[in-house]
C-alpha cells in the first residue's frame, strides 16, 4: 500500500507539467502523461497576446469574443459527440436555454447567480433528454434531439416569459457580465472575461480527458456490447458526457447573451447546431482542440465571405461534405499527423496514441 501512495502523490502533484516518471511498472497509461495543462496555458497566453493588441478595435474584438464563446459550445460538442457518441443536434437549443434563462434572471438576481441557474437547468434538461432517449441509437437519437431542439425554439418564440409570441422571443438590453461587483462593460473587457471562462472550461475538460471516463466512452462508442460484458454500462458514460457537453453549450449561450446584449430564437435553431458540427469536424473531431480550432476558423471565415454573403450556406455545407468525405481528421488531425511525421516517430503506426 505504501508504494502505491508514494507514486500516486507524485502523480497528483502533476499540476507542474512535464515531470515525467520513467516507464516504471506503476506508470499510468500514456493519456495521463500527455502535457495537457501546458498546451492549455500556452493557448491562453497566445490568444491573450493577440487579443490585447486589438481590444480598442471594436470590430475585431467582437469577432474574437464570438470565437471564444462558440469555442465553449464546440468543446461541449466534442465531449457529447466525439467521446460520448451522441448526435447532439440539440446543442444550439441548449445554448438557447442557457442564454434565455440567464438573460431573464440576471436583472433581478445578478449575473453569477442566473448563469449558475442556467447551467443547472441545462444539466437537468440534458440529463433528462439523454435518459429519455437512452435506448435510441445513432440516427434515432439524432431525430429525437432535433425534435427536442425544435420544441425549445418554439417555446422561446411563443412563451410570454421569453418575450413571445408578440415580441417574437427577442430580448434586448441584457446586462454585460459582472462578477463580485466587477463589471465588464465594453467588448474589450468582456474579451478577458470570456478568455478566463474558456480557460476554466479547457482545464476542466483536460481533467475529464485524463480520467477513466474518456477510456470508457471511447470503448463504448467503438463496441458497446463488448464493454457491457466487461462490466461497463454503455449508457452511463454516454449520458454523463452528453450532459456535460450540453451544459457547456448552455454556458456558451450565457456568454453570448451577456456579451452581445440581445438574443433571438433564430440563433438557436437546428441549422446552428449543424454549423457547430461543421466547426468540430473541420477543426478535427479527434481532439477537444478541434472544437476550438473549428470555432475560430469559422468565425473568421464569414468575415472573408462578407462580399459574397449569400454564398455562405452553400460554402458551409460543401465544406462540411468535403470534411466528412475527404479528410475526416480535420485541421488538428492534420497538424498532429504532421507533428508525428516531424518527430520522425517511425515506430508509431497510424494515429498518435492520444491527441494532445
Amino acid at each position: 500500500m505504501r508504494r502505491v501512495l508514494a507514486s500516486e502523490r507524485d502523480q497528483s502533484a502533476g499540476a507542474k507539467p512535464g515531470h515525467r516518471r520513467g516507464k516504471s511498472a506503476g506508470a499510468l497509461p500514456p493519456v495521463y502523461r500527455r502535457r495537457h495543462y501546458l498546451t492549455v496555458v500556452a493557448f491562453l497566453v497566445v490568444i491573450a497576446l493577440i487579443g490585447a493588441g486589438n481590444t480598442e478595435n471594436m470590430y475585431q474584438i467582437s469577432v474574437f469574443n464570438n470565437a471564444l464563446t462558440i469555442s465553449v459550445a464546440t468543446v461541449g460538442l466534442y465531449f457529447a459527440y466525439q467521446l460520448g457518441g451522441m448526435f447532439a443536434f440539440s446543442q444550439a437549443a441548449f445554448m438557447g436555454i442557457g442564454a434565455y434563462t440567464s438573460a431573464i434572471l440576471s436583472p433581478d438576481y445578478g449575473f453569477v447567480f442566473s448563469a449558475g441557474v442556467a447551467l443547472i437547468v441545462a444539466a437537468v434538461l440534458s440529463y433528462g433528454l439523454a435518459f429519455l432517449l437512452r435506448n435510441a441509437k445513432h440516427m434515432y437519437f439524432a431525430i429525437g434531439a432535433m425534435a427536442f431542439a425544435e420544441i425549445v425554439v418554439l417555446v422561446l418564440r411563443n412563451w410570454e416569459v421569453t418575450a413571445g409570441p408578440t415580441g417574437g422571443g427577442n430580448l434586448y438590453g441584457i446586462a454585460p457580465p459582472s462578477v463580485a461587483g466587477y463589471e465588464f462593460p465594453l467588448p474589450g473587457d468582456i474579451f478577458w472575461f470570456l478568455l478566463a471562462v474558456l480557460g476554466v472550461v479547457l482545464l476542466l475538460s483536460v481533467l475529464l480527458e485524463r480520467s477513466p471516463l474518456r477510456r470508457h466512452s471511447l470503448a463504448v462508442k467503438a463496441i458497446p456490447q463488448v464493454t457491457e460484458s466487461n462490466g461497463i454500462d454503455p449508457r452511463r458514460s454516454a449520458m454523463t458526457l452528453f450532459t456535460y457537453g450540453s451544459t457547456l453549450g448552455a454556458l456558451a449561450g450565457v456568454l453570448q447573451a451577456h456579451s452581445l446584449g440581445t438574443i433571438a430564437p433564430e440563433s438557436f435553431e437546428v441549422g446552428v447546431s449543424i454549423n457547430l458540427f461543421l466547426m468540430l469536424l473541420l477543426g478535427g473531431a479527434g481532439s477537444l482542440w478541434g472544437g476550438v480550432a473549428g470555432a475560430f476558423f469559422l468565425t473568421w471565415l464569414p468575415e472573408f465571405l462578407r462580399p459574397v454573403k449569400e454564398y455562405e450556406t452553400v460554402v458551409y455545407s460543401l465544406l462540411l461534405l468535403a470534411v466528412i468525405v475527404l479528410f475526416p481528421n480535420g485541421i488538428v488531425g492534420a497538424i498532429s499527423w504532421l507533428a508525428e511525421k516531424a518527430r520522425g516517430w517511425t515506430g508509431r503506426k497510424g494515429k498518435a496514441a492520444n491527441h494532445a
Partner: protein
Amino acid sequence: MSNFVALLFSGLTLGAIYTLVSLGIVILYKATGIVNAAQFGLVGLGAYIAFWASTDAGMPLLVSYLLSIVVMALVGVGLERLTYAPLRTRPVDSVFLSTLAGGFAFVGLIVLWYDAEPRSLRSLFGLDTVTILGAPVPKHSLFVIVVCAIAVAALSWAFNRTDMGRQVRALAFDRDAARLQGIAVNRLSIITFALASAMAGLAGILLGPVAALTPEMGLSPMLFAFGAAIIGGFGRFGGVVAGAVLLGLAEQFGGGYISTNWREIFPFAVMLLIIAFRPEGLFGGEASARL
C-alpha cells in the same frame, strides 16, 4: 363540428405530404442502406422548379408539376452516381451527417437561384373549396390526399407483387445473400434514388400552396417524415402512413383546439415520446439491427 372536419382534412393533407417524403426515405434505405437526410433539400428544389416553370417560364401549372417531377428524378440519378459509392460503406451516422450537409447545399443553391424571400406556388385548384359536412375544404387538400393515396397504393403493389419490389425487400434483409441471387443492385439503386427524389419533389409541389415557399421549407416536413418512418418501424408502408397521418393530425388538432402558435410542438412531442418509449416503432416492422 365543421371545425373538426376542417382540421381533420388539413391534418390528413399534412399527413399525406409527410408520407410521400417518408416513403422516399424508407424505400431508399431498404434498397441501398443509405439514410438520405438530404430529402428536405429535394423537397424545396422540387417546389422551386415548379415555381420557376409556372411563373418565369410561363408554362401551364400541370406541365410545370410534371416537369419538376421529371427533373427531380434526374437529380436523383445524378445523386446516385455522385454519392452512392462513397456513402455505401460508411457507418450510418456519418452517412446521416453528410446527407444532411448535402441537403443544406441544395438549400444554398436555391438561395443562389432565387433568394430567401418567401414565395407561394399556385395550386391546380387555386383557392376553390368544397363543403364537406359543413366545412369548407380546399380542393387542393383533397387533391393532395388522393395523389398520396394513389402513390401509396402503387408503391405497396410494386413492393409486394412485382419482382423488383421483392428484390428490394430481399436486399433490405440480407444484402450479400440477395446479391447471390443475381439481383442487379446498381440498377436498383439508380431506380430507387430517382423514385425517392421524385417523391420529394412531388411533396414540395403539393406543400407549396399549403405553406410558403422558402429554401428551407423541407426541413420540418422531413423531420416529421423521419418521425413517421420511426413510428412505422422503417418497415411496412402501413405503419409509415399511419405515423405520418398521426403527426399531421397531432399538429392540426393541437393547433386548432389548443393554440395555433404552439401547434408544431404536438407532433414533435409525439415523435420524441415514441423514439423514447417505442424505438422499434408502434407497428413493429423490420427496423433492421443496422440502424
